[in-house]
């Protein structure tokens, strides 16, 4: 173990977690995972692989059948929901599953009002959050008059207002076009840079490649592997077991590896560099 890992305690620690929905097959079969502060962790895998079931243990919505899930050292399911909201923020996939207020401002205040926070503090936080999620000027708008991308930002903002150090985002870019997705990912990067730990579930391997500091690959309720994009996307057997495909650039680079192109090139600049070098050698 490096000095760094010795010094830093995991903020989420999952130990041999087993879980099943009533009377059904195991959805999680012995998952162990440590998440460290300030990671952008991407959990990937097909639907039904157990991704959502796993992260729902992080904010105590689900209780382990076997094993344990600790948030900053405490069993997650023992933390009261109100306190949990200030520890782990969970942005669900569909923003419309939580938006119900008549104005953007009220929607952002909802969580804080559940927490009995003073009015001054609420207004201070809302002002900050509105800046962060770029909804300035839309405070009094009716949320459903906003576009999908803005509603997603509003949903993230309402979580952010409670100032949790850990943020879980389920499918941050689903249903958005390329620009919307990019804006969302920039927001996530900002949150990361302000010191938060990000856990995201996504099917988009390009997003994973571009933004995640670590990738966890799941299939059939187990973690198959975890590591950086470079470490994960070269494990073709693991990808096949999880029914995942590396991003297109990596597939092309891999196909050209016998011609001297780096098989772990993931991005266009990397592939171009590798191309240049193979030319020099040639």
């Amino acid at each position, binding site marked *: 173990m490096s000095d760094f890992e010795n010094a830093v305690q995991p903020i989420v620690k999952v130990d041999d977690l087993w879980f099943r*929905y*009533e*009377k*059904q097959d195991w959805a999680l079969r012995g998952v162990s995972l440590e998440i460290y502060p300030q990671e952008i962790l991407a959990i990937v895998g097909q639907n039904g692989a157990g991704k959502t079931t796993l992260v*729902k243990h992080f*904010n105590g*919505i689900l209780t382990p059948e076997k094993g344990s899930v600790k948030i900053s050292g405490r069993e997650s399911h023992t933390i009261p*929901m*109100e306190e*949990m*909201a*200030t520890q782990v*923020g*969970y942005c*669900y996939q*569909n923003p*419309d*599953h*939580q*938006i*119900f207020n008549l104005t953007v401002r009220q929607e952002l205040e*909802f*969580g804080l009002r*559940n*927490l009995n926070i003073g009015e001054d503090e609420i207004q201070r936080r809302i002002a900050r959050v509105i800046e962060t999620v770029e909804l300035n000027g839309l405070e009094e708008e009716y949320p*459903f008059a906003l576009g999908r991308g803005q509603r997603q930002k509003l949903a993230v903002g*309402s*979580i952010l207002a*409670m100032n949790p150090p850990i943020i879980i985002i389920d499918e941050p870019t689903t249903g958005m076009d390329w620009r919307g997705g990019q804006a969302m990912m920039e927001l996530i990067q900002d949150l990361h840079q302000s010191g938060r730990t990000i856990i995201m579930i996504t099917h988009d391997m390009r997003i994973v490649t571009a933004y995640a500091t670590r990738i966890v690959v799941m299939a059939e309720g187990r973690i198959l592997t975890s590591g950086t994009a470079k470490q994960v996307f070269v494990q073709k057997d693991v990808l096949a077991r999880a029914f995942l495909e590396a991003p297109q650039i990596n597939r092309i680079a891999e196909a050209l590896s016998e011609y001297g192109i780096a098989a772990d090139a993931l991005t266009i600049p990397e592939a171009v560099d590798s191309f240049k070098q193979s030319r020099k050698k040639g």
Partner: protein
Amino acid sequence: MSIQFELYTEGSSFLYRMDPRVKITAVLVIFLISVLFTHPLYLAPFFFAILAIDILGKVPFRRVILLLKSLSLLVLISFIMWPLLFHPGTEIFRWGSIYITDFGVAYGVAMAFRILNMVIAPISLMLTTQQRELILGLRGIGLPTKAAFALAIAFRFLPTVVGVGNGIIEAQRSRGLDINKGGLIQRVRNYASILGPLMISSLRIAQQLALAVESKAMSSTAKRTTVRTLEYSKSDRYVLLGFGALVVVVVGLRLMGYGAFNF
């Protein structure tokens, strides 16, 4: 996740195989009998007959028992309250101003059997009939196509809406919502946080559904057909005939003054 949306439980017996139209007719006849008769000695045999048919027809009995248990309070209340409030016939017991009569007790017993008959019969139908067969059967006995379609959509989308509802509850809990907290106004607001998104999501589903349905030949002027049709088997016909005869006998008895009390 594990909510059961359908009472139907896999099985095989003459009851499972019976044409849904016959089963629905049988339930309607039981209803008629239970309403016409008010005498316990006329109602009780039907109760035991239904139980016997359920046992012979391999209706999942654990679920019937469960049902009887949950009904027991209602049955008990009927059994106790009627005699206390309804006083025809001869007084048989008095305690201060509270008294009961013989006919009152009998009426209480009769009403208990009425409740049992009118609940167990349709539940037995649902336990042994798939929802789609039920709809096919209802249409077979004359429910208009549109009403049958509405019912089918309700059955079809119940789990969908419940699923969405669960997602919404989770999302709001994650924002610190405790639904039972606060005063009246706070609680109304709590519920709004779940019902609001649920309504919007349901409307979205309804909109997409409407477009999908509309694009599937809804403008057709042809007479609608069905992918499955119901055929009465020989035994189905005999059973129907039997129930027809039963109705004649029951109505006859009732017209002749049997099966009810004459106070």
